[in-house]
């Protein structure tokens, strides 16, 4: 039995993030790089540590290798501890057989033994898909004050976007009256952020019931929370106002990165009182040559820049050669953009090579058919050959052959 802990966190990190296409071919969504030196999972993990939650179970399932390796013993987040710390929880075999995590609630159900070891009063359920800075301790205080069985973090979204979210109708006290799951005509703009605080004894009871229900899809949002609501449990919405972004699609990942360059956006990663921790790459300061031009961008250690970089986020050890152009793009670690190549409105994953004169993506204003425009994506390790082109909205998951000068003129 481990030391009794008031509140522990369970971080759902098994998602594939299928809408991120080739970016999540070999890595789980929470391991997707973000913001120059981070990965998405750095946000919930850092939030936990900054909120004083030092016991975190990370539930992995899809392509866990890179994620497990990244989390390691948790030292990067000060989560390598004698009592508590970070624990990777993958599906396992039991006497009665083995099964994958069927849904979010089932994933927690399969780890009841892990949670029981800490005998917590409260459990915080988080997801590894979102970029936000949040003090969970304030939410926990709210949960206690309301004597709630479950508290759901809620964010007011623009009305026109409300139909994309799971919504809540809330009374003046903060109590939840009704739920609407992605309704066509929303009656509320209060969206669930996928951050929950449960009183463990209650959650445990409903997890057992949910598992026994053969018709359940074992999902928090679809099954378990509605069941609690129906049974008349005290459900409350905790109002969060700050930056929060689900980086589930190529467009939103691209946007969320570039948000860091907008002074008006409320996401300050340099705040010493709420640091976002990450694993360091041990690279020297980045070098900007006399021929380079860098503006309105974020550049990480280990980069070497001799070309033009504008409105872009460059991760560690990216090389931009002379005469190359990087505009409105996200370039992940170790990628090389060779002489004269042009990368615009694109996401280029790790260790890719954009050969001389290649063109990736396009400015929307230069596209004839706006409907066909989108952010171009180049997958990890992909080589875009000399003079080749990756069209806007295209996803290059495999090497793109070089195009010779003659072919081009045809």
């Amino acid at each position, binding site marked *: 039995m481990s030391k009794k802990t008031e509140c522990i966190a369970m971080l759902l990190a098994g998602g594939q993030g299928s809408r991120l296409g080739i970016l999540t071919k070999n890595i789980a969504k929470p391991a997707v790089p973000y*913001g*120059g*030196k981070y990965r998405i999972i750095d946000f919930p993990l850092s939030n936990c540590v900054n909120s004083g939650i030092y016991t975190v179970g990370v539930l992995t399932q899809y392509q866990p290798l890179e994620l497990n390796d990244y989390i390691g013993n948790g*030292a*990067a987040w000060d989560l390598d501890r004698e009592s508590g710390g970070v624990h990777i929880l993958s599906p396992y075999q039991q006497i009665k057989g083995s099964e994958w995590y069927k849904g979010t609630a089932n994933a927690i159900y399969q780890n009841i033994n892990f949670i029981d070891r800490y005998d917590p009063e409260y459990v915080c359920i988080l997801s590894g898909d979102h970029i936000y800075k949040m003090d969970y301790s304030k939410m926990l205080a709210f949960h206690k004050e309301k004597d709630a069985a479950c508290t759901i973090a809620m964010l007011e979204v623009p009305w026109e976007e409300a139909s994309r979210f799971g919504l809540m109708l809330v009374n003046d006290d903060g109590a939840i009256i009704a739920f609407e799951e992605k309704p066509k005509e929303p009656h509320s703009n209060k969206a669930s952020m996928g951050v929950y605080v449960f009183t463990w004894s209650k959650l445990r009871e409903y997890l057992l019931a949910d598992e026994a229900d053969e018709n359940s899809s074992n999902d928090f949002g679809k099954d378990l929370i509605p069941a609690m609501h129906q049974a008349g449990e005290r459900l409350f919405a905790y109002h969060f106002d700050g930056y929060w972004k689900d980086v589930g699609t190529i467009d939103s990942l691209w946007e969320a990165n570039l948000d*860091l*360059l907008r002074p008006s956006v409320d996401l300050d*990663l*340099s705040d010493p009182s709420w*640091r*976002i*921790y*990450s694993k*360091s790459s*041990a*690279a*020297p*300061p*980045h*070098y*900007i*040559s*006399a021929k*380079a*031009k*860098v*503006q*309105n*961008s*974020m*550049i*990480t*250690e280990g980069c070497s820049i001799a070309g033009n970089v504008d409105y872009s*986020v*460059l*991760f560690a050890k990216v090389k931009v050669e002379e005469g190359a152009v990087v505009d409105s793009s996200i370039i992940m670690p170790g990628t090389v953009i060779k002489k004269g190549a042009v990368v615009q409105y694109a996401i280029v994953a790790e260790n890719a090579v954009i050969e001389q004169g290649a063109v990736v993506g396009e400015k929307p204003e230069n596209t004839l058919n706006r409907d066909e425009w989108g952010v171009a994506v180049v997958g990890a390790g992909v080589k875009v050959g000399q003079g080749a082109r990756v069209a806007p909205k295209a996803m290059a998951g495999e090497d793109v052959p070089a195009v010779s000068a003659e072919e081009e003129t045809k």
Partner: protein
Amino acid sequence: MIRSNDILGLIHSNAYDACLSELTNMRTMGSVPFGGRYRLIDFTLSNMVNAGIGKVGGVTKSNYQSLMDHLGTGRAWDLARKHGGMYLLPPFLLEESGSFDNRIEAIKGNMNFIGRSDEEYILMSDCNVVMNFSASAFAAFHEKSGADITILVKRGSVPAIENTLVFETDGSGRVTSAVFGSAGDEGCFSTNIYFMKKALLERLINDAAAMKKKSFEEDIIMENVGKLKVFAMEHTGFAYAIDSLKAYYEANMALLEAENAHDLFMSKRPIYTKVRDDMPALYGIESNVENCLISDGCVIKGTVENSIIGRGVTVEKGAVVRNSVIMQDSFIGVGARVESVIFDKSVILKPGKTLCGAEGFPVYVGKGIVI
């Protein structure tokens, strides 16, 4: 073959503090910031760790608070260990091992630590030579040549450091003569990096201390050139011995040469340092940066040319920084201008102010000063 975990590392963090008196007023030579995000000790420590050395003692004499803060448990160098790892060795307040004035006394004062270590060999280094060398190759050279003592040397202009040994060797690398060099002469000078059996060092130090000898270089190395097999191995890569504030400035500036930076920060032997969890550097809309090394956490809105910028530095709009070394968390206000300066940590230059040194002779501004 010498097993890497059979080598004990010993670093003299205070050696030659006087060469950089401005910078070491409040810190050790080892904790002097360098190259934007590093401290001088990072180089020698990383060299040891990259060779698989798992136990390192850091000998300190004074002002070692900043060094303790920097090293912490040694985790950044993978030296936070149950067995071995990082040991900080402050002086004992005993007469015989109290505050020391020379290398013999410094080692003598730590004989307990050295004696209690299980390793058969010892690699000894100072912090004032910036380089990335293979300590494994150094140990292999020592073993292959059958040397008793091996010294890492660099060919070039002898630094203006007191008691710098200059060697002549035969074809095999065996030292045939050792003399004190005069600054500026060309020669094969000692980097003060030594490799030998621990038992030999213990014997040499005990004998020298018993005879009240004062100079490691003269009374131990020069004295034994004919008697023991003393070998020199030449380091052919980038190496910069920091013997003055001017040399400190030049060594920083040397990193702007791609070849030097590549040699020093080569990826197969990375240089580790304390992690600060800064965000990446942010460039503003009107930023103009040419030929610079810039660290994480910087916010650059003005013009920066030919400079080394430490972590968390802000260069405001319209500000100009040229030919300068700016250490971490300094702030250059709107429209301010600096040229040929060394700013220690957390210097604040208020908006509109100007401060210029002469070309090649930088002005130094101390930690936390507000101009």
